[in-house]
């Protein structure tokens, strides 16, 4: 590679980094600044760390610190959904990859179709269904639909198909192991990276999902963090001054801090999962 092309490459990557990075840099700096400074100061100015602490205490002044309740709710919803979806996805992906059975092809095709369908399209019918089961407003109305995660099944399917040699299973069969035992003690241990990936993608989905809890939940005590933040920021006029007149000191810096709190788990998860992500969705076990 010539020095010229190397330079061009670095320039391109850095330029893109500026484009993608600047918004978050702004968001990161915003809580250190005052609302006045945000609109009139220099775009990437730094205020003081003390302002961040103030901003947080302002945020917790809303409904007696309800924001911490919402964080807890979000963790419960996400943890339960991810756990159930793993229990569903991994065995199903394994069976689809390693067994032939009637309906296999239909199951796989339907999974792919539902995977491509944007979730927003099914939310309203899901609401009616949940209502028929008398579950709207409960934690289940959010957890159960989110536990259905066809993308996870597909990832597991691809992983087992590519990385679990039949010979290994056949050897186990010769030893007299039952099919379920083979899954649990041969397939699952080999699939750890894939399971971690499915968990990460599933977590991102559950944590950021807005539409489903928005439709299902009506009581602010059951809100997720995303939903609660909308309520908090709109009623205090933090995003736009005309939306609410609550007598709380919640303005743009507080809104930015709230946004950072909401996206922090994703970024931490991303860094943790990068180990697996880097080697591809299929964890590249073929070469390992």
């Amino acid at each position: 590679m010539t020095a010229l092309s190397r330079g061009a490459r670095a320039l391109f990557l850095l330029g893109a980094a500026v484009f993608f990075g600047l918004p978050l840099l702004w968001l990161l700096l915003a809580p250190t600044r005052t609302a006045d400074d945000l609109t009139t100061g220099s775009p990437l100015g730094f205020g003081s760390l003390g302002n961040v602490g103030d901003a947080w205490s302002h945020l917790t002044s809303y409904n007696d610190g309800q924001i911490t309740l919402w964080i807890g709710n979000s963790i419960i919803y996400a943890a339960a959904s991810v756990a159930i979806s793993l229990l569903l996805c991994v065995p199903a992906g394994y069976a689809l990859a390693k067994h032939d059975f009637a309906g296999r092809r239909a199951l796989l095709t339907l999974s792919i179709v539902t995977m491509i369908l944007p979730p927003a399209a099914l939310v309203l019918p899901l609401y009616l269904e949940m209502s028929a089961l008398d579950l709207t407003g409960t934690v289940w109305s959010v957890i159960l639909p989110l536990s259905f995660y066809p993308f996870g099944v597909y990832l597991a399917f691809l992983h087992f198909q590519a990385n679990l040699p039949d010979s290994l299973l056949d050897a186990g069969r010769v030893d007299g192991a039952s099919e379920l035992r083979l899954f649990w003690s041969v397939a699952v241990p080999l699939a750890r990276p894939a399971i971690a990936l499915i968990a990460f993608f599933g977590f991102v989905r559950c944590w950021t999902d807005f539409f489903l809890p928005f439709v299902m939940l009506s009581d602010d005590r059951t809100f997720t963090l995303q939903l609660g933040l909308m309520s908090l920021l709109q009623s205090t006029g933090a995003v736009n001054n005309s939306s609410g007149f609550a007598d709380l000191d919640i303005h743009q810096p507080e809104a930015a801090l709230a946004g950072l709190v909401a996206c922090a788990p994703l970024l931490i998860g991303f860094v943790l999962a990068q180990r697996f992500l880097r080697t591809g969705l299929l964890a590249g076990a073929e070469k390992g």
Partner: protein
Amino acid sequence: MKTLTTPRPPAAAAPAPVTPRRRRRPARRAAVWILVGPYTVFLVVFGLAPAGYALWTSFVDNGSFTGGHDWVTVLEDYRLGDAAANVATYLLLWLPILLLTVLSLAFTLHARPGRTTSALQLVYYLPGAVTGSAAALLWLFMVSPDSSPFSPLLKLLDVHSATEALSGGSVIAVLTVMGVAVHAGGWIVVLYGALNALPKDVLEAAQVDGASAWRTMWHIKLPMVRTYVAFVLISSFASGSQVFVEPSVLSTGAPGQISPTWSVNQLAYTYATQDGDFGKAAALSLAMLAVGVLAAWIVITRTRMYATDSSDSR
């Protein structure tokens, strides 16, 4: 036939044929259904049932058959034309730019992987992590020439205020930029992962042959990851045609600027929630679902993207 050992396509519609070597025995069949049964139940209850219910709702109201009346009134709604035009324009702009951004960044990153690679991937992923009201605040400020870090660029484009950026024809430009920023990062990671999983010997052979970096990319790497590219394309088309979050986020930051029925999906949502008409909402949602499925179908069947590279090459 080295290419056969590359990772399997992430969206192979036609499942790889399973060789008949597996005998079906009752015990094994029971085991299979224990493994796959719970998921199947969820698939039916949370995937198929809602879709079926939507179809039912679009034809039946309060137990009486409306005979497609909902479908007709939806098609006659004056808002549908505008919304469809908006979504089409958005797709025309956003999809190519997104694909180009994802491809160029993933390939450039992969041309010389280094220590900064994962850090850069994280940076590219950042905008996608900011959601909801915080995103409304973020993007409102990003398009405000007086307080945005991009103000030199905005001034160059002759944008004087956020109002201007969010009204008329420029809304679509803002949405495109926002859509690329939010969605590109995840796909870059996926594509980079796919590139990384390519067999090293093929790439090394190309280098020995003296192929330029450009030629290697165009003639060797790209064909090998084409399935991933197609997957990015289908998924993005599906999500882009259903665009809902971005315009509604922008309008919470600046109410009254962007029509609440800007996109087709927003219109469907408006039917259900503001007009109280679930039949029309269901009809329009289903029509949009059909568009997504049809597009996927065309890409899957008409291109030979998913001509299966046998899964039994081990």
